[in-house]
Structures are given as C-alpha cells and as structure tokens.
C-alpha cells in the first residue's frame, strides 16, 4: 500500500493533545482523506486520549500513552485507517465504557459517544500486564450535510 505507519509516544498531559492532533492530521492528510474525514478522526483520537488522561490515569501527568496509526487495505471508498491507543493506567471496567443518552443534556460523558459515532469500529480491551488498548478503524465516508455522525457500515473485519 505504501503508507508507512505513524507512532506517537505521548504522556498524559493535556498539553500533549495538540501535538497528537497535529501528528494524526498530518499523517491522514498524507493518505488523501477529505477534510471532514480528517476532522472526525482527529476528534476521535483527541477524545480517546482525553479519556485516558481523565479516567485511566485519573489526571496524573507524565504517564505513557502510545498511539499507533496504520493504513488499512484500500477499498473503493479509499484507504482506511486503524489507530491503536495503549495506556498503562487504571483498567476501567469495559461495561462502564459506553456513550450516554444524549437526551440528557449535561456536561461530560460525550467522548465515547463521539468515538462510536465517527468510527466504523472501536473496541477497548484490558491488557494482561496492565492498562488498556483501544482499537479504532474508519474508512472514508461521503460528506453528508448535518449528518456526519451516521455510521458508514459494518466493521471491515
């Protein structure tokens, strides 16, 4: 496919979020994605990292977070992207990681909803030697005015 992957070694500092966004955005732009697809992917990664800092490391700074970005096999809609986010923090029970009811208008709890909305696939798993890994995948989607959150279809696997 010819698209070399990207690895980011971050720490659990909110000031690192911009670095992550810029790195992911530049890499995805390099595979030719449209701006709306790039924006969604960057948003999902930011939300996932925010959750790691807030819930996995409970606000502790300086803790490691590894982000790996890879291209997926080409489809008629374009090259897909897989992102893995690995932390070594507290393992939040998997059944607690879920988006909340959006009818309940209040601050907080929107990150997982955003991830599920903009990604074709997302899965958290606990790692036996500690921490959690989130795997997310997405293929390009047609831009739909006012409806960018609609899932595009089943997971590629």
């Amino acid at each position, binding site marked *: 496919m010819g698209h070399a992957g990207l690895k980011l070694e971050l720490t659990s500092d*909110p*000031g*690192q*979020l*911009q*670095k992550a*966004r*810029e790195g992911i955005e530049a890499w995805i732009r390099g595979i030719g994605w449209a*701006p*709306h697809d790039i*924006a*969604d992917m*960057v*948003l999902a990664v*930011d*939300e996932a990292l*925010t959750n790691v*800092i*807030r819930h996995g490391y409970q606000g502790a700074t300086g803790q490691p977070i590894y982000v790996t970005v890879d291209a997926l096999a080409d489809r008629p809609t374009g090259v897909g992207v897989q992102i893995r986010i690995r932390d070594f923090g507290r393992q939040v029970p998997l059944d607690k990681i879920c988006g909340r009811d*959006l009818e309940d*208008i*209040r*601050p*907080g709890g*929107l*990150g997982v*909803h*955003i991830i599920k*909305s*903009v990604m074709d696939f997302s899965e958290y798993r606990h790692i036996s030697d500690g921490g959690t890994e989130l795997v997310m995948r997405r293929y390009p989607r047609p831009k739909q005015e*006012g*409806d*960018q*959150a609609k899932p595009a279809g089943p997971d590629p696997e």
Partner: protein
Amino acid sequence: MSDASPLKIKIDRNDRQCRVTLAGDVDMGSAPVLRKALLEVIETPFDRLVLDLAGVNYIDSSGVGTIVELRRRTDRSGGDLVLAGLQERVRSVFEITKLDKFFTILDDAEGNAAT
C-alpha cells in the same frame, strides 16, 4: 514538542449586552480556563451573551461540555445565550453530540440570524 496553544478570551460588555470572543483550540487543557472566565462573566446580569467562536479552530467534548454548563447556568440566571460564527469543524461536534438543537446558533460572528 509543542505545548497547547493558549486559548485567547476577549470579553466586551456594553450595558447588558455581552460578547465573549474566543480564539484558539478548546480542549481538555484549555476548557478549565474558559470555564473560569465564563463563570466570571455571568456573575454580572446580562440580557444577551454572544459567544463568538469564529476564531476557534478546534473544539472537543471538554469544550462543548463547558458551553453546556454555561447554558444551564444562564437558563437559571436569565439572559439569552447565543453561539455565533462556528467554523464547520466546530459545528460538526455540536451536530455529532446533537447539541446543535439545544443552542441558538447564529450564522456569523456578528450574531446575525441564520437564513
């Protein structure tokens, strides 16, 4: 390594009309600064508060949550809150979270009504 760009917050008050103009990214790092500024703004009663987001290139759920909290507080204290000048990328986050229907969102940064 780059640090998060500081969020710039400009506050203009004319009698009971208030405008808060933001420039930069609103994320987990800058949202607490924004929250503090907004809570100070609404301590003084107002008729209309325009949150000018034209200079915001990026917002995540931390930023959106801060604005939701502002709306809840202004609902209780009285005074209209409107969001103005949202870039497409910012508006998209409100749409994904279905919060675009919860806010009055105006087309341009001057606070003119959407057509």
